[in-house]
């Protein structure tokens, strides 16, 4: 078990390294291949009326004149060992993990990320709670009442749910429940209140994105749960459970759901991992200042240190979620052996 985890952690490290190299290459290699020069890259990060000399200074300062390997090495070193940054009157040390300083705002990326993380976590966890409860409950009921009016209605709604782009439902929800004054039941995104500051406002500001996001996922989970339940409820061990004289609820919950939930657990872990790295579309639709919005803004501004930071944190969540899921799987399903 311990060796397994160590091996997985090493592999996670390798994966994150690969992700960082690829990110770096996309942002530095692709434009260079397309003919960009150090100066033209630097021109993005100086003011509107910068002179050629200023641009040259910026290129030097941002290190664009060094070979790409050196630039990457500097970045990687920052994460492992921290980095120094000349902010004008002095030099500041940014301790590891240091994702560097924004090309645009000249501020360190890491505190920014840590600042955005609570928003994304709030969004993801809140939505996850709703969608798991709603999705699994609907799926179970649908499976048990297979073919009934409820089942058909629920599955139609679920299919519609997975077929609707979130940036469409999101806008519609904003227009109907937020912008439209008569039904203004919630403040739209953009105004995030930390949970520890005011839990009520926290929920109030997130309720629309939660529901929209949860609807999308709940739909998928309802379909998954239903399929899983139908399969499990046809398993021989369910028949055995009934033959023992168990009441139906115990049969469904203890024996049926337990079996059906295992694959859902896997998917849930991965979904949550992906979401924690930034619900890009949801956050940009609701202008929530989370990791996803941060990523989009950073990409549009071509602010590489931010992009690198947010990508790595996002990838970290995916890798980490994968690991947790695999460990949990072994706990949930005794047949699984780690090794």
């Amino acid at each position, binding site marked *: 078990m311990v060796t397994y985890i160590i091996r997985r952690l090493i592999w996670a490290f390798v994966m994150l390294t690969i992700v960082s190299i690829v990110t770096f290459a996309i942002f530095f290699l692709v434009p260079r291949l397309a003919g960009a020069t150090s100066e033209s890259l630097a021109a*993005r990060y100086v003011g509107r009326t*910068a002179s050629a000399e*200023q641009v040259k200074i910026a290129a030097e300062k941002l290190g664009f004149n060094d070979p790409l390997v050196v630039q990457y090495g500097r970045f990687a070193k920052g994460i492992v060992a921290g980095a120094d940054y000349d*902010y004008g009157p002095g030099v*500041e040390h940014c301790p590891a993990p240091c994702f560097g300083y924004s090309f645009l705002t000249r501020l360190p990326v890491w505190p920014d990320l840590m600042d955005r993380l609570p928003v994304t976590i709030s969004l993801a966890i809140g939505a996850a709670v709703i969608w798991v409860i709603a999705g699994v409950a609907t799926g179970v009921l649908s499976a048990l009442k297979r073919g009934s009016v409820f089942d058909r209605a629920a599955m139609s709604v679920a299919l519609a749910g997975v077929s609707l782009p979130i940036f469409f439902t999101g806008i519609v929800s904003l227009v109907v429940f937020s912008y439209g004054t008569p039904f*203004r039941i919630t403040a739209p995104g*953009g*105004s995030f209140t930390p949970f520890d500051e005011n839990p009520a406002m926290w929920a109030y500001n997130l309720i629309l994105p939660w529901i929209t996001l949860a609807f999308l996922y709940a739909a998928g989970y309802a379909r998954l749960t239903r399929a899983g339940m139908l399969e499990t409820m046809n398993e021989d061990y369910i028949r055995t459970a009934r033959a023992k004289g168990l009441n139906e609820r115990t049969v469904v919950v203890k024996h049926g759901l337990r079996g059906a939930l295992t694959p859902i657990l896997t998917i849930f872990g991965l979904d949550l991992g992906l979401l924690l790295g930034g619900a890009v579309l949801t956050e940009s639709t609701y202008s929530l200042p989370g990791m996803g919005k941060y990523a989009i803004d950073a990409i549009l501004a071509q602010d590489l240190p931010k992009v690198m930071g947010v990508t790595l944190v996002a990838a970290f969540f995916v890798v980490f979620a994968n690991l947790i899921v695999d460990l949990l799987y072994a706990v949930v399903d005794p047949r699984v052996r780690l090794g």
Partner: protein
Amino acid sequence: MLRRRLGVAATGAVLALAVAACGGGSGSSTPSSSGGAAAGSDSKAEFNAALTQVVNPSDKKGGILKFANGGDWDSLDPGDTYYGYSWNFIRLYGRSLLMFKSAVGKEGNQLVPDLAEDMGTPSDDAKTWTYKLKKGIKFEDGTPVTSKDVKYAVERSFDKEVFPDGYTYFNDFLDWPKGYKGAYKSKDVNTDSAIETPDDYTIVFHLKQPLSNFDYFAQLPATIPVPKDKDTGAKYKEHIISTGPYKFEKNEIGKGFTLVRNDKWDPATDPNRKALPDGYEVSTNVNADDIDNRIIAGDLDVDVAGIGAQPAALGRLLSDPAMKANTDNPTSTRLWYTSINGNVPPLDNIECRKAVEYAADKVALQTAWGGEFSGGQIATSMLPPAIPGHEDFNLYPPGADNKGDLAKAKEALAACGQPNGFETNISYRAERPKEKAAAEALQQSLGRVGIKLTLKPFPQADYFALYAGKPGYAKENKIGLAQNGWMSDWPDGFGFLQQIVDSRVIRDTGGSSNISVRDPEVDKLIDQAMKETDTNARNALWTQIDKKVMEGAYVLPNVWTKTLLVRSKNATNIFVNEAYGMYDYLGMGVK
């Protein structure tokens, strides 16, 4: 902690007031506004009222004003900010040598002393400018402000490595020692050749060349004093030391900040600021549509960026007379235009350029930019109406309905030797939907006379440096037309025209905002204007330059920007300051 609690209590009071105001007979004027005879009228608020008078005049203190920004400041640092709204807002927490008067309309264009006791005194043929500082002005920590702090502030702003967002006026015009690199990298260099501080309350600027309007430099935020021992360079924007009536309480970059009263600010030294509210709450990166809705609903006071109502709110505001009466529609000193690049054949022929001028459907362009109210006024020349030297003239009347004079356009095409039209490209910044719409509108309207345009979107960040603004690239890739825009740093011809019509600013390496105007005569006139010390004669020269550029058909003016601003339901003293083309943030108070 105490301050914080007070802040919360005050917010509650604002809400209570707002509710009371809503409950009370709406439409009727409030007692304070009828009492305040300052505006000379207590008539009901009407459309554009704040352009010419103070709406809801009041001297009531207290309350919190709530501002929101659809984007974010480039920087809150006085040495590193280059947004008009930021210059408007910065007066709340920073005092520069001079400032634009907090007054209605044209009066706002007037410079008044702020830190300085008086306007600058020129000497040595306007190559040296001297300012005397008022005494008794303190930083928020109680340290007195001296001329050394102003000098340091200008010196630090020199370093564009640390402050890339700012302007380079001081860098370019002051007589810096050779190889000077700014306050951080040239720490022990004597800079007296550029700025002298003979005593703590005198500051003298030495210029490389005569400059008749240096007073405009003296109002730049870079002259807002920065205490050397508190300066943290690139991080200073997180902890700015205030000299104005308000200081930062909480500042979370990317999210917002709050301002509270600065008790070290002495109103006796400051005739310009009323400082009515107890504080300001500012949130950044807020959904622009939401800003509109919240201002209309009354739970937000000001869209700080002054970008005006978004298209979605526009329909509502304009179709409801009661709502419209609560809006103002100022014209700013920004021109949206299309550069017609004479380097790209057949546009090297003036007749072909004229054909573009005639064929353009100005109404479609106006709609593309946002329509009559949120787009702008149809522009016929370059200088915006608010800038001295502006004169109404129209060399290429686009038909009676402003939709283009196709007959004239065809004539011009024939004269150009392209009777059936020609093909070229039009570039625009990909991130800007309005530029895209304008380019599409031109594509349509020029198509009517056979001028076929292909749209070429380029990333905003590289637009001038790599594509449209790089002469070699533009010529090679036949970018005959390029969408462009310019806003004056201050209301005078130099501030508006110099960067966009002087052919000498065009660099082969790209990056210039002037893409198309290459006229030696224009350059000559600019030199003349910069030397001219008489204001009226100078303004007349800028008028001439404007005409000359239009005669050459180097640019197709689209619109002079207008924005539809919504007045806050809770604020007092609402008026538009023409220097900023938006509400003046210094005068506003809370009902």
